[in-house]
């Protein structure tokens, strides 16, 4: 008997809810303001400090200097976890976590972003990336020289890491 009563109660739980299915995708479903969707890089604001590239947990942002004045910044977006750390650490506010979430694509290159940046010679300290805390500063002495063709991290360094236990963490090319 109690079981019958509980069955009726269970039916009521569903009955009272009414219709809950949303019309998406027939109607748009805008995400809330804080939503962390696809990061959008603004080439007009970016100063090319590569702070985002060195603090991306998924290692999805590459840096390559074509020459003294031109730096390429490439966002791959494949493994991107949309954590928003790049936007956090960007000193210029050049990265926005947008509301884009319909990013499924058969062509992986569709979500890539490539910035070609003019790097004028800085007259000040020469360090453009100011770390939010010491935990974000670069510990490895050297520079990024990523392989854009094969989307590989390459870290170049001189005379570093002879005996270091962490040599193997990055592809290191000794000049």
């Amino acid at each position, binding site marked *: 008997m*109690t*079981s019958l*009563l*509980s*069955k009726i*109660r*269970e*039916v*009521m*739980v*569903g009955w*009272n*809810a009414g219709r*809950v299915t949303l019309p998406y995708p027939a109607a748009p479903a805008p*995400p*809330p303001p*804080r*939503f*962390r969707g696809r990061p959008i890089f603004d080439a007009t604001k970016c100063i090319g400090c590569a702070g985002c590239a060195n*603090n*991306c*947990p*998924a*290692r999805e942002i590459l840096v390559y200097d074509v020459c003294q004045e031109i730096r390429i910044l490439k966002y*791959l977006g*494949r*493994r991107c*976890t*949309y*954590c*928003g*750390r790049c936007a*956090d650490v960007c000193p210029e506010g050049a990265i926005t*976590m947008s509301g884009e979430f319909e990013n499924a694509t058969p062509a*992986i290159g569709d979500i890539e972003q490539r910035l070609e940046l003019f790097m004028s010679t800085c007259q000040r300290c020469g360090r453009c990336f100011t770390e939010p*805390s*010491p*935990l*974000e*500063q670069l*510990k*490895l002495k050297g520079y990024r020289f990523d392989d854009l063709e*094969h*989307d*590989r*991290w390459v870290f170049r360094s001189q005379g570093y890491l002879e005996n270091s*236990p*962490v040599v*193997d*963490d*990055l*592809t290191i090319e000794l000049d």
Partner: protein
Amino acid sequence: MVARDLLNRLKEMLGPALLRVDTPADDRIFIHVERDAIRAVCRHVFRDLGARYVISIGADDRPFSGQYLVAHDFAFDAAHLLGSVVTHVPEGDPRLDSITPDVPAANWAERELRDLVGIEPVGHVEPKRLILPDGWPEGAHPLRKDVAWNFVPEGYDPERAFKFGEPPPGCTVVPFGPFHPTLDEPAHFRLYVEGEVVRGCEYRGFMVHRGIEKLAESVLSYNDIPMAAERICGICGCVHNVAYAQAVEEAAVLRAPPRAEYIRTIMLEIERLHSHLLWVGLACHILGFDTLFMQSFRIREPVMWIAEKISGNRKTYALCLIGGVRWDLTLELIAELRRVLDTLEAEWRAVIKAVLGDKNVQQRARGVGVADRSLVQELSLIGPVARAAGVPLDCRRDHPYAAYDRVEFEVVTHEGGDVWARIVVRMKEVLQSIEIIRQCLDKMEPGPIQLAITDELPVGRYGLSSVEAPRGESHHFVITGENHRPRRWRVRAPTYQNLQAVPAMIKDQQLADMTITLGSIDPCFSCTDRFEIVDLATSTTRVWSAEELARLARAGRR
């Protein structure tokens, strides 16, 4: 005080074998002992002092001290003390007395020690491979420091198969998994069945071992790891995120501001709400009761939406950095969260009232998959599995973290230790979580949410952190290190302990009860396995054609 007591007893017992004892805080103790004394100490701690075994950590400390390091973590729950028995193992002789004969709960952890760090537990009761794939050559241990994160060993033998034990006489072998409709993730149970009754079983899992720990200690940095830690689990990600941050903060003697602690508590409880609602739904689905499965998920959805509004994502909150949190709560969000909780409470009370009287569910779940008090103690089971057996274990109360020392709540327990008891416990805990969030919202005061970190973190310090995940205690152990990353970060997800009890829980039960028994511990194999090979160096992609795949499959079958 308890730490002092313990210290005196150990001094008396061990004499010179006790090298050093650190008590960095009232609720932490690190006992450094000689290698030969490890078994006696662990037996004493586990058997005589009634401590709960948590996990064993193996670390390659050779670049720093020239030795390997092994730590066995124990929890004195009643005394609110987390402890670690630490010893060093010389490089030339990487062997250590196994503690598994005395502490059965250490079975897997010691096998992992052997697989990943290459320290042989001498006298282990079941010295079989646990984590490494069957074809992996002997002598290659991924967690050693001289092994690169992307190391591929020579001599991989794809033909070698795991050697299972002999089935008991008169039993038929029924394979369960690696792919099974009720398992969301791969794991293999080899069931020994007599008629309809399961007489025994053997487990072979770790098929989704992802190498997150290795990545953390060789590639990522302190503030990268929280985002990776979150991806250990798709359900209790925030738990790992917070547990990692807390372990590092403890090691570096930092403390997040009070508002950040409240926000951590709130987000952890939001996660518990969604997890409990999800699990109750899934458990009902396994039982064939899809009405409640649908309704649980419907009731859960507003919880996901509010999480998205607060953190920017339904599930991966990306909440913590070292020393704080990233998302603050505005007044509008607080008001909306309160509304969500009110609706949730009303709806969930109706569900509890309906289901607790449902005889059909009870008939299916009572007396099934029993884990009684003695099993809970022997295998150091945790979370709802322990609480359903009447053992009031809850890290939130026993080892308070974040803001849990400032809120009041009840540790829900039930008697019986069966699947039904677990359903009751988790259904009622939802109401406690709602209360905790309300108290946090009342008590929270304006203030900073991120500690200003002005110095680099100290090197070589230990930090422990236990966080009560929805399915049990998640334990993180961190040794801080150079280059802005830990030397060692060990994650023990709750399923790691609870899964070891499944063979005992399923013994002499009907074969048809296997699914709900396994489902009732809420297994999370990815959490337990913690490995994903992401090739950072050669992220070249390749599209396989159907012909190629077929050829590959045929080649594999040959």
